Each structure stands twice: as structure tokens, then as C-alpha cells.
């Protein structure tokens, strides 16, 4: 069962919910090793996205919906996360083109393009303790699942599991990008807020695909 625009909008709505629910948790993570605004920034952005969603035309493609997310996040989130997530959704939109439905290969392409967009803008490598550390394992897990012939739902679930594990795995790291890099050894023991929000977004993708 390929995923269509209804899934993308469900994903967006669920993302808005979980970001709002996790607003304080993300602020707390960012307060520990950053400047305490990540939850606020993401929440402001997704609230705006969910308002903008009403303007989406009924015959919009998944790519159209993703592009709307991208431009709205770029113009409302600010901070580091705004341009990074904005670029991720922009590249994801480009990767899926005008396809009305997304099969497993398209989902993998979407995730890969999103991750590549983040790396293009932020120049972070794996292990730098950033959102990349959630996205790269997610992309890899999605690829493996797709090559093993998994369904779209299974691919997204594998990606979400890997992103969550990746977010947890940022805890022992020293940061080399973003504000946490100023902290040196003191960042050890804290989870990266951007990796955590990435895991939340990918879990929202998987859950909505599974119809949960």
C-alpha cells in the first residue's frame, strides 16, 4: 500500500501534536547544552505549518505538501533548526517530484534527500552530536528494510526505530557542531535536542503510515 498526500498531511498533523507535547522536553534538552529554545522554535514552526495546511489544494501531491512544510519552517522556526529542517523538507519534496503516491523506494529517496539536505546546509558529520545522528541511521535502516522487500509502513518503522536509537546514542558524545560544541566534555551525558526532535518526527511518520 503506497502512501499518498493524505499520509503526508496526517504525518504533519501528528508532528504538530508530538512537537507540542514535547515542547518543554525539547526546551529542557536544549537548555542543558544549548540555549533552551529548540522546543519553542519547533512548536512555533509546526503550529504555523498546521495552519498553512488549510491552504493546500485538494489535488496537492505529497511533494506539494512537503514543500509547504519546508517553506513554512524556513520562515517561522529561525535558529539553526529552521534552515536545517527547512532544507530537509525542501530536498525531500524535490526527491519525490510530482508522484501522487510514494512506494518504498520513494520513501527511501525522501529520507535520503532530507538527510543530505541537512548535511549540505550544516556540514555536520556522523558523530558530531547533531540531528544528523538521528537521520543517518534512519536512512540506513530504511534502505536495508526496502532492499529486504519490506512494506512502506515497515520501512518507516525501521527508520523511526533507528532514529530513536541514534538520538539516544548522541548522549555520550562530545559535540562538534552547533551550540553544544562550545561545551567540550561538558556535553557528555546529554541528548542532542535536534536528534531528539528528528526521532519524534520520524516516529510520527511511521505511526501515521501504520494508521495509528
Amino acid at each position: 500500500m503506497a502512501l499518498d498526500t493524505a499520509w503526508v498531511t496526517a504525518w504533519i498533523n501528528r508532528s504538530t501534536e508530538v512537537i507540542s507535547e514535547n515542547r518543554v522536553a525539547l526546551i529542557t534538552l536544549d537548555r542543558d547544552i544549548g540555549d533552551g529554545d529548540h522546543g519553542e522554535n519547533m512548536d512555533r514552526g509546526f503550529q504555523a505549518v498546521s495552519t498553512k495546511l488549510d491552504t493546500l489544494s485538494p489535488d496537492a501531491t505529497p511533494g506539494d505538501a512537503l514543500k509547504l512544510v519546508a517553506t513554512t519552517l524556513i520562515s517561522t522556526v529561525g535558529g539553526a533548526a529552521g534552515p536545517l529542517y527547512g532544507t530537509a523538507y525542501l530536498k525531500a519534496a524535490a526527491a519525490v517530484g510530482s508522484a501522487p503516491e510514494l512506494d518504498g523506494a520513494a520513501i527511501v529517496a525522501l529520507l535520503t534527500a532530507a538527510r543530505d539536505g541537512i548535511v549540505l546546509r550544516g556540514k555536520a558529520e556522523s558523530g558530531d552530536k547533531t540531528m544528523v545522528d538521528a537521520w543517518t541511521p534512519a536512512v540506513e535502516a530504511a534502505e536495508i528494510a526496502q532492499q529486504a522487500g519490506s512494506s512502506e509502513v515497515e520501512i518507516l518503522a525501521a527508520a523511526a526505530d533507528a532514529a530513536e536509537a541514534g538520538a539516544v546514542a548522541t548522549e555520550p558524545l562530545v559535540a562538534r557542531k552547533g551550540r553544544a560544541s562550545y561545551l567540550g566534555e561538558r556535553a557528555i551525558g546529554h541528548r542532542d535536542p535536534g536528534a531528539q526532535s528528528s526521532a519524534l518526527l520520524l516516529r510520527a511518520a511511521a505511526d501515521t503510515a501504520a494508521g495509528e
Partner: protein
Amino acid sequence: MKKLINDPKNVVNEAVAGFEAAHPDLVRVSHDPIYIVRADAPVKGKVGIVSGGGSGHEPLHGGFVGSGMLDAAVPGPVFTSPTPDPILAATQAVDGGVGVLHIVKNYTGDVLNFETAADLAAAEGIDVRSVIVDDDVAVKDSLYTAGRRGVAGTVLVEKIAGAAAERGDDLDAVAAVATKVNSQVRSMGVALTPCVVPHAGEPSFTLADDEIEIGIGIHGEPGRERIRMEPADAIVDRILAPIIDDIPFASGDSVLLFVNGMGGTPQVELYIVFRRAAEVLAEKGITVTRTLVGNFTTSLEMQGASITVLKLDDELTALWDAPVHTAALRWGK
């Protein structure tokens, strides 16, 4: 958290509205998207200068909009870089036909958002140059960090670049002098107490009653080390040494010494800090020929201070002395 605010979501909106009401002779304000431009913008034939960043560092940047300094300031939410839209709009609003300089503090968010805005402005046919300010010696400038942060030295870059633009320098020259100031200015700060971001409602970090944070960032990012409280003179010695060693400043140099309050520091304390810093520089044969003391790059209500030293030459001194008329810095007119 007790603050003289209404809804935390409206802090920036309402503060900007108050700024507009207080300084109608100096600035005009756009409310959507939010930016502040000098009253006579765009100045035809003059390089426009735009700066911006998260709010909470006032008077940086809005307080420096006016003749001889910034053409526009773009305030983001508290401690959060503005998005590209207002930066682009401000850039367009101050374009006098000969290009616009973006002065950007070196934080990932600011750099990325200004970068996007610059790309968009270029697509609209505006010649945009960017200078990244990274004067904070508390952070190592290495491949393994996001690089040094931009802190209070930004004020000096903005003043001097503003004077160069005002006297008619072209975009290349204005960018060059801004780059030169950045290369010759170094800063470091200390926090005694944390600050509270309105939407967070809780202190951005905690310090015990006898602890201070050496090398604090202007968003409450932790610094180099957390130590026991010390007398002011010992603290000054501690934060001034890495500044002097970094450039390196040398005996015989003339400098501008700038003691900056973080927002919640009584002025007597800033002058106590100034006194010691001037003493130490004099001992090293460095002559303080220009001075600045006050709250210019703040972190909301944080108590603490930073010291900034800029190596001067005749050109920079003349540009520093040039007339400026803004809400927070004014002389010569």
C-alpha cells in the same frame, strides 16, 4: 519567573512597538515581518548595513540603528535567529543601490538564516556581502567546534563599518573594514547569575551561590570553566589574559577598552572591572585611547560582564570618533 512582560509570545512584538514609539525621529519599524530601519532608509548611494539575531541582547541590534551605524536591525525571537524573510525584507528596505553588508554573529542559526536571505536578496539583484563576527576567545576556534562566537565585539564592528558606509566607502571597502575590526577585536565574559528566557520560564542554567561561569556566551551557553567566586580584580585578570594573548596585543599598541554589562550588573561593578582592566593593560604597555562602558550586548537580566579589546590604528580611531546617532550610541550630533 517575574518579568515586566505580557504574553511571553509577544515580548519581541511589544518591545519593538515601544522602541518605535520612543524613537520616532530615529527609526521606522515594520511589524510583519519584524525589522527596524533608520528613519531615512534607504539612503541613496550609501552602502546599507543590516545586522540582527535573536532578541534579548538589547540594545544590540535595534539600539544601533541610525545615522553612522546600522541601516536596519532584524530581531528574532528571544535568543533565536530571525528567519530569512525579515532579513530579506530589511535588506531590500535599506538597499540604496550600491549594495548591502550583513553583519552576522557566528552562530549556526544566524549564519544559516542570513545566508539564505543573502541568496534570496542576490536573486533580487542586490549585491550582498556578509561579515561574520567571532570575537569570543572563550571558545576555541577549531575544526571541532562551530568556531568562536560573536559577542560584544559586534558593537565595535557595527559602529566602525557604519562610519565607513556613512563617509561613502563602497561595499568592498565597508566589508573590508568590518573584517579588519573583527580580526583585531577579542572578547571574553563572565556570568554571576543566569538569565531567564521568557518562553522557557526557568533559568537557562544554574550557578551555586559561590560559583561563577568564566567564558559565558551571550545566550547563557556555558563557558570555559565554572569556578568559585573571586574578587573582581582576580576575575578581570582571568578573562583579560586570554584576550591579550590571542591576537597578540603588544606593548606600544593603542586599544579601545570596552567593558560590557550582561544586563543585570550594577554600573559601579562595570567601572570596578574597567579600573582593573585598564591597570592590567597599562602594565603591559598597552595604551587605552578609547573607552566604552555600559550595557551594550546583554543577555536579558544576567549578572556579569565581558571585556572587549580592539586594537586601534588611525583609520579605526577616526571611524570610531565619527558622528553616530542611534538610540544607544550617540555623539558628534
